């Protein structure tokens, strides 16, 4: 191996304890009990999931030689409450889709094409529900990402690149 250090921010592969913490939060919030694959963290909060055949060691060896931009898919973000220091997990659209078979609670089912349309345009849903915190949004058989439910609304986290634009496209 050569002595050149990788110029990219080093990949952080989560250890068993760190993985367990993430899964425990997801179990509490969504009922998710098990996540297969290697979990990685970039920066303070972005989590990636890699389910390929490389071992952790092989990934690290590759990173030493070649700048790695990404491993696997961005599936979640760690959110820490500034006051309570409590940690939450916000799943990305892909995270929700990858783990949808295990999501058993905190699901809000959209009620109409119009509501699904608004959601996919990135608009908050001004509705009152009994749900609180991070929830999975579902419409018919499709999971449409993650929202945050409060007393008055469901906050929308659909990233700009995944939003529907202009007129209704759902139907």
């Amino acid at each position: 191996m050569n002595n050149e250090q990788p110029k990219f921010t080093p990949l952080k592969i989560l250890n068993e304890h760190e993985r367990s913490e993430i899964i425990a939060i997801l179990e509490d919030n969504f009922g998710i009990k098990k996540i297969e694959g290697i979990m990685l963290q970039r920066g303070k909060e972005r989590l990636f999931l890699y389910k390929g055949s490389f071992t952790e060691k092989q990934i690290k060896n590759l990173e030493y030689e070649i700048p790695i931009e990404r491993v696997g898919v961005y599936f979640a973000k760690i959110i820490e409450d500034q006051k309570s220091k409590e940690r939450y997990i916000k799943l990305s659209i892909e995270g929700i889709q990858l783990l949808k078979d295990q999501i058993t609670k905190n699901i809000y089912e959209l009620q109409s094409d119009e509501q699904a349309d608004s959601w996919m345009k990135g608009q908050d849903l001004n509705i009152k529900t009994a749900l609180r915190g991070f929830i999975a949004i579902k419409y018919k058989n499709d999971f449409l990402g993650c929202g945050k439910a409060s007393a008055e609304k469901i906050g929308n986290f659909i990233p700009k690149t995944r939003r529907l634009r202009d007129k209704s496209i759902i139907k």
Partner: protein
Amino acid sequence: MNFKSKSQPKSRKYEPKPEFVERIKLLLPDEKDYNDYVEILNYPPVRSIRCNTLKISPDKLKKKLEEKSWIVKQPWKNHEEIMIVEGKIIGKKRNNQKEKDSNIKINNQQKIQAKQDFEQPTSVGDDNFGVVVGDVVDLEPGELGRALEHMLGYYYIQELASMLPIIALKPKPNELYLDLCSAPGSKTTQAASEMLNTGTIIANELSLGRIKILASNLEKNGVTNAIITKKDGIALCKRLKKNLPEIKFDKILVDAPCSGEGTLRSSPITYQMWSMRTVHTLSQIQKQLFASAFGILKVGGEMVYSTCTHAPEENEQVVNWALNKFENAIQIEKIEIPVKSRPGITKWKDEDYKEEVKHACRIYPQDNNTEGFFLAKFKKLKEVEE
């Protein structure tokens, strides 16, 4: 000819350079063939998509799209995931089987009209047109890209010819696969589907801007078995060979940067950008890319070299050069693809190429109503002595 879609021919903003015309006439000496080629360049390519089977089955996707009143065809029998969206029905939805009998009489005229409007776009399609009611219109500009199913990653918008390298290479589950020039990710996501998200894909790209698009596409398509690397393709291969010799790939795709002569239907600005100097420069880079990639291919492994250009300097010349350079270590293979293709040429101007170069495939737009493409497949027979 049989390529016209509902779309009107575009007025040509750019004109081909005389040298380009002269070269194409050399490649297409038959006058009718040449005229067909020139004619089809005036029409945009058909709207083709590939179902992302990591997320949804082709049947389910087709049903969803037809519920939106889109007219969807599956042109290649053994590739149900590949679809063409020919337009949509306004007024009433496309009929299901139950409604078919009751509507067929009163809407017969419209059915005939719809069939006339949408001619069969390829020579290898099955006719599943069915019965339609209401007016048939073209999709709105951008409608394919902003549909919910696209946003959710259920399909990838990909030109038909661009799907051929992966069909030829056939990456399989649990293999180690390298996509040397990966962005924007069309073929990488296609490979991930074929590999059922198992094994490992190394998706390499040098440009950070293009990496962002690649990462976004891999993410949208739920690709969990890929590692995106940022390195010049030639340097990447050399580094791997020298410092990580245990990494040898089962399959490699070298979809090389090229002069883009095959993309004139979707990108007419290529007429203006084209130059012989670029062709010669790219030819040198392509040879280096080929040789570097071949060095990290497993013995018994397979590699596809492809471009979206017709220029022999970037195609057969590269293939011929590689066959000579690697002699007994390389074998060019016959390719199975679901479209009409023409064999690689064995003579271009003053150069003669090996007979085996005929196993390469030239895809001309007028043959299948696609863009233009070139591909050749190789097997590594033994390690190359340095």
